[in-house]
């Protein structure tokens, strides 16, 4: 029995990335942001999401990619925090995923399709993909015509 994994795909510039769908709470358009002075530049600021404080991380900056502009296609992928993920994991799914302790949203250039991939097509990531630090990648998925780098969010907030 082959296992399958489902990902939300998104792009940073022209690079394709994937995020395990179990990690995704929701996807929003640009929200009203309050910047926080003194923090690293990849922390864009805080937003009010229906009464909860969510920190927005500029993923391009965090991964060390060249900065771009926020366009009308930019989206915030709001992640489940580790506590919210625990609910899913207690139901027996996603035991191998680790999330972040806080409520976090990832600012990306564009969101693509939901893609289901056979586990056999997922290989360990090389030390780096392009300019992206291997710490933030948990593998690469081979799609029909392209490669999708799978994001590891565990280290996103750690220095």
């Amino acid at each position, binding site marked *: 029995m082959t296992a399958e994994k489902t990902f939300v795909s998104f792009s940073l510039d022209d690079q394709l990335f994937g995020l395990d769908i179990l990690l995704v709470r929701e996807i929003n358009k640009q929200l*009203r942001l*309050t910047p*926080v002075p*003194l*923090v690293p530049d990849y922390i864009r*600021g*805080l*937003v*009010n999401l229906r*009464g909860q*404080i969510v*920190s927005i991380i500029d993923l391009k900056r965090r991964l060390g990619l060249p900065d771009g502009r926020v366009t009308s296609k930019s989206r915030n992928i709001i992640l489940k925090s580790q506590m919210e993920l625990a609910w899913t994991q207690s139901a027996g799914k996603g035991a191998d995923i680790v999330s972040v*302790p*806080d*409520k*976090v949203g990832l600012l990306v250039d564009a969101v693509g399709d939901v893609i289901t991939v056979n586990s056999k097509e997922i290989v360990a990531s090389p030390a780096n993909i392009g300019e992206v630090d291997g710490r933030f990648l948990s593998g690469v998925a081979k799609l029909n015509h392209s490669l999708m780098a799978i994001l590891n969010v565990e280290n996103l*907030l750690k220095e």
Partner: protein
Amino acid sequence: MILVVKVGLQQFGLIVDRLFDLEEIVVKPLPSFLQHYKCYAGVTILGDGEVALILDPAGIFDLAKLAHVETGKTEKQQPSVQETRENTGERQTCILFHSAPEETFAIPLASVSRLEKLDPERVEQVGQRSFLSYQDKALPLVHLADYLDVRPLPENLKRVFLIITQGKRDHEAVGILASKILDIVELGVELQEPVIQQPGILGSAIVNGKLAVFLEPQALLGAAETQAGKG
């Protein structure tokens, strides 16, 4: 605009662009990755839905490395005063000043209403007395050497300072001429027997290594008026 903020015994001024309002808010905890930024105490959501950071004054104080700044209010900042065992325990804030450059005088801050700087040309003489046109009135000026056995103000000063005392019902306000204002200090002093026995002199003490003569404004003015009456 400056917000004066207190942290323990210290104070500092925070420069802000605009003040809005006093509000009661619900404090939400900082995201865990922000918790080591000591200048932030929490986050809140305002009435219009906007997110606002809550500042922690102690954190800002540390961040700005203000700890070494002298404020005159901490224990270490007290000027050295020769204190005897029988300290009266009364602490008084005094202005230290020079009339003649080598002589230090002290006057209680409580009896002072204002300090002014002025061009000596503005002093007007009427007979033996000096006056200044101040706030549409003639302010009598006191040159200490005219009433006490002390040395006079230096000649040819480019500017003099005026220590304007509180005017009361039975005493007019006067301006005491000074060549230099040294400091404002809080002292708990046991005064020694006046080196100079004269009305207006309370006594003396060693402040910051030098002899300071403590003036008692009421008596000084009283003597000044008596003398003026005679003159």
